[in-house]
């Protein structure tokens, strides 16, 4: 690995960690503005994290090492994804470490450990959250994999570097039936995986309607900080995935420093646009009933399947 390759990785991980809370902050601020409020400053989630870091660590009795271990695994898996996914440059030295299938699996690692941690204290709400989270994950996962299949066909490879490069070379291939279908499926699945509206409401206070929040009710202090950081990173990474698969323009194809800088700026700009769009979407959307969530995911699964079929037939 060259030094400049190392720079790419550091920049990517830095953006993923540094901008994740800002993205959450942006969502909250934009939402607040649309609701007629002034809203918190964009950096507020960073302040929250700084505070959580300095707080007391509390572990519920009866819990095992899983409970303490899960936040670390959660963040660690997100860090690995940030390192191997082409965020600012397709020439990431770790591109060969993992392909899209591996990335989806890495996200699942985090989900699984968090679900186990939700079950660990043995509280009713923790179990409920874990059960619902796994229900959503079990149905969103296949959608992601199918969408990967549909997209991988374009570049004959499921490694993101290859896909993004292929898209850059043939930008028109994005405007096709299978791309559109895969995009729709991927967006729905990503919303479900990131626990956003309409699948889950991240700012709910009512335990019975919670999915993701119910699992982390027992976390406090630095552990909670890690969980929230990981949630932000997951949103950012899914956003980047979608952006890079369907509009990769601006991303660096080399590891030259100016190119990396341009790539980083382009990425941040695209994420900001995506964040505003998501916030607007969330203002217009209500959470759907829990038992309609599987129907929504079935829709996304079928759309992904149609993408694959379209890829096979229209090719």
């Amino acid at each position: 690995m060259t030094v400049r390759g190392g720079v790419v990785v550091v920049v990517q991980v830095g953006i993923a960690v540094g901008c994740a809370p800002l993205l959450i902050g942006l969502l909250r601020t934009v939402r607040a503005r649309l609701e007629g409020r002034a809203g918190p400053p964009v950096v507020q989630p960073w302040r929250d994290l700084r505070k959580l870091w300095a707080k007391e660590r509390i572990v519920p009795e009866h819990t095992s090492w899983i409970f303490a271990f899960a936040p670390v695994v959660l963040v660690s898996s997100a860090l690995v994804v940030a390192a191997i996914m082409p965020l600012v440059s397709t020439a990431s030295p770790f591109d060969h470490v993992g392909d899209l299938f591996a990335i989806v699996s890495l996200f699942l690692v985090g989900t699984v450990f968090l679900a186990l941690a939700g079950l660990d204290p043995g509280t009713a709400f923790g179990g409920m959250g874990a059960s619902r989270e796994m229900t959503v994950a079990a149905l969103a996962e296949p959608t992601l994999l199918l969408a990967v299949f549909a997209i991988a066909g374009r570049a004959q490879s499921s490694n993101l570097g290859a896909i993004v490069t292929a898209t850059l070379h043939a930008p028109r291939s994005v405007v096709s039936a299978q791309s559109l279908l895969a995009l729709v499926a991927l967006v729905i699945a990503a919303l479900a995986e990131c626990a956003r509206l309409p699948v889950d409401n991240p700012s709910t206070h009512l335990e019975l309607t919670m999915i993701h929040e119910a699992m982390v009710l027992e976390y406090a202090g630095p552990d909670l900080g890690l969980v929230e950081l990981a949630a932000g990173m997951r949103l950012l990474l899914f956003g980047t995935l979608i952006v890079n698969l369907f509009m990769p323009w601006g991303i660096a194809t080399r590891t030259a420093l100016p190119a990396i800088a341009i790539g980083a700026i382009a990425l941040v700009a695209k994420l900001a646009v995506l964040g505003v769009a998501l916030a607007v979407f969330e203002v217009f959307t209500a959470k759907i009933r829990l038992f309609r969530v599987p129907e929504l995911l079935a829709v996304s699964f079928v759309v992904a399947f149609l993408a694959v079929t379209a890829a096979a037939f229209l090719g």
Partner: protein
Amino acid sequence: MSLFDKIRRVGRVAEAPVAPTAGMVPEAAKRLRGSVQIRAVDAGSCNGCELEISSAFGPHYDAERYGARLVASPRHADALFVTGPVTHNMATPLRKTFEATPAPKIVVAVGDCACDCGVFKGAYGVAGAVCDVVPVDVEIRGCPPEPEVIVAELRRLTGR
């Protein structure tokens, strides 16, 4: 589309900032550095104070802009907003909530009932004021306290 129109028509409704209350800032609040997550505990209130708290977080007073947020679990919280006189049934849950909150933590007694049982003083179902059950750091007076007062006190806690 009609929602877009409404958003455009309404614009911003948040009112001009209220000045924070002067006075000593609790030691714990200094360590929070501008971010206070709040768990509301109804220890036996008539719900008047709850209405005012939710109004403080509503569009007009918008307490969220000062770095405060309501959360769902005391584990996530830095401050407990306790309302109402503490009834016998709620004394244990209140203590447990206090136990469950990670240090540094602040207990805010919201409303006259929470501060000194108010009109319920001496009633048969009341165990005492909040300070009789858990240590109170900040008291917000009023029956119910106005949202401006709550926001002003909050600004003192968050320092923003």
